[in-house]
């Protein structure tokens, strides 16, 4: 069984670049591609059912978008929602699928800005037990 490629996708421009690169890698090596949208709902702050649904709606819309973007690509393409903080979630999904590589985009922000606002790619590099492919935002 082939092991596949995991790509994190949130609909941003850099995620589109990452998706593009991931599809290319999947095609080149004839690997199945799994597109994942990850989020975490924190129980802090009380009731969260509706908020959770709103996030799920958003995730579903984004993943549909990703499916459209990759329509016509050969090979198997799956989409999945990961309910966990993105970096941890992607690393775990990749482990579970025994993926060859995790692909994420990077916004090209300064290190400080990334540290303040949270940089999934940066966290993932440290967390992942697998190869990570980081795709710059303007990659075509």
């Amino acid at each position: 069984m082939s092991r596949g490629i995991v790509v994190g996708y949130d609909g941003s421009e850099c995620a589109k670049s990452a998706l593009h690169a991931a599809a290319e890698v999947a095609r080149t090596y004839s690997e199945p591609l799994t597109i994942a949208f990850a989020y975490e709902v924190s129980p802090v702050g009380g009731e969260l059912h509706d908020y959770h649904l709103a996030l799920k709606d958003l995730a579903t819309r984004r993943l549909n978008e990703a499916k459209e973007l990759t329509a016509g690509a050969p090979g198997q393409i799956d989409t999945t929602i990961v309910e966990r903080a993105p970096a941890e979630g992607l690393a775990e999904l990749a482990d579970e699928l025994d993926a060859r590589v995790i692909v994420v985009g990077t916004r090209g922000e300064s290190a400080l800005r990334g540290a303040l606002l949270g940089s999934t790619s940066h966290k993932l590099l440290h967390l992942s037990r697998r190869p990570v492919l980081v795709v710059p935002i303007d990659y075509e």
Partner: protein
Amino acid sequence: MDSVTLDQPSSGIQVEDKGLKKNAISFVSNIVIGVASTAPAYSLAATLGYIAAVSGLGLQSPAVLLVCFFPMAAIAAAYYYMNRADPDCGTTFTWMTRAMGPWLGWQGGWAIVVADVLVMPSLASVAGIYTCSLVGVNNPSTLAVTIIGIAWIVIMTVICYIGIEISATTQRFLLGMEFGTLVIFAVVALIKVYASHPAHSIEPTLAWFNPFAVTSFSALDGGILLAVFVYWGWDSGVTVNEETEDSSTAPGRAAIVSTFVLVGIYLLVATAAQAFGGVMSLAAHPNDVLAPLGNGVLGSPLDKLLIIAVLSSASASTQTTILPTARTTLSMARMKAIPKQFGNIHPRFLSPGFSTIWMGVVSTFVYVLLSATSPVNLIGDAFTSLALTIAFYYGFTGFACVIFYRRELLKSARNFLYIGVLPFFGGAVLTWVLIKAVLVYSKPHAGFAKPFLGIGSPIAIAILMIIIGLVLMIVQRITMPEYFQRRLEVVDPSVLADAPAGRAS
């Protein structure tokens, strides 16, 4: 976070709602959330002085904290059962809408928003005053407090907007520190009272805990109204309780435990503070009771610990004020009760971005407005009307539960007691407190500030908020009528039947 969840990858997109059960959180985390959301150190710092200042209450502040526990525990039952039937982050808004119709439901949602907006000036000024105490400035100017307070609101709003959440471990640590400091403070204060009898100190007696020792009825009522505030927030613990890791855990056990933890710490600290400083010292500085006491009890530099505990508690409280408000307005927007922008999720931070920013802006505006009226203590009056608002929506949540479950009440003695009697009792007590308080506070000189048009300022603020709410609701009715055509609903009987084994006990 303890939650670990991965959807199995599949060829399709998983959209069906699997609920939050799999997003399980541990029992201890649950207690921590319930207690941290109530923010005990901040609640005491902000409330104790005002309770002590209620004229005619005398030495019975601890009794008031104890009495108020009962209706609040009863309302917790309503929250538990309503959440079970409809786990919605609109809580009172959604539940009142279903049980009592869209008009009352809308007002319930509005009450949550008003309460959260009115608490922000108090939070911000406590944060401002204690920040000054931390660096050794003891009588800061209103301007300094206001500037620090605004910075506080802005920082906390940004944190909620970006979606930085402190981890469960950090939260446990902070809460542990907050608790440890409060207990040390209380124990040291009591030891000093008995050992060295500092000036103004009084030895505690059992009468302090006896509500019947309060000579004036309206004083007891006024005290209870303010005490409602100290318990405000632990509905968070009740409503996330469904997600507890160990599904065989008895219902609401974490909520019950956190309630008792709270009652215990409140009684201990209130008793110690009153014993050490006497009633006058509490009433004299209603905005910052713990800072001056901390210095007397613990001495420098240990008193800074108490200040840090209040600040970290206030920061937790700001977060647990902004987050649920944003989620309530998100829920209202999804039900089409308010414009849909409030339901927007930020594409990058995945927070309810629009609602969060809006909450921060309105809070800052209200805070500046109230501060600008200094030296009259409008923030104190806003605090009183905040208590009125909480009593209103907690009370109505109790009634909504009885109405929503009315067809199930007579099916078992257990249903009758927990879903009927308790919530009704809580609702009735809070409504009674509310009505009495309106009568008391509407007298011209009941507030700290000057009366408006002959009405006491706490009630004037409440009336202003009701009028704004009615106007906004009518605008909504005209522009987005769909929500207002909703019909009343009753609970689906399977909600009770479906209870997993162990939960029905």
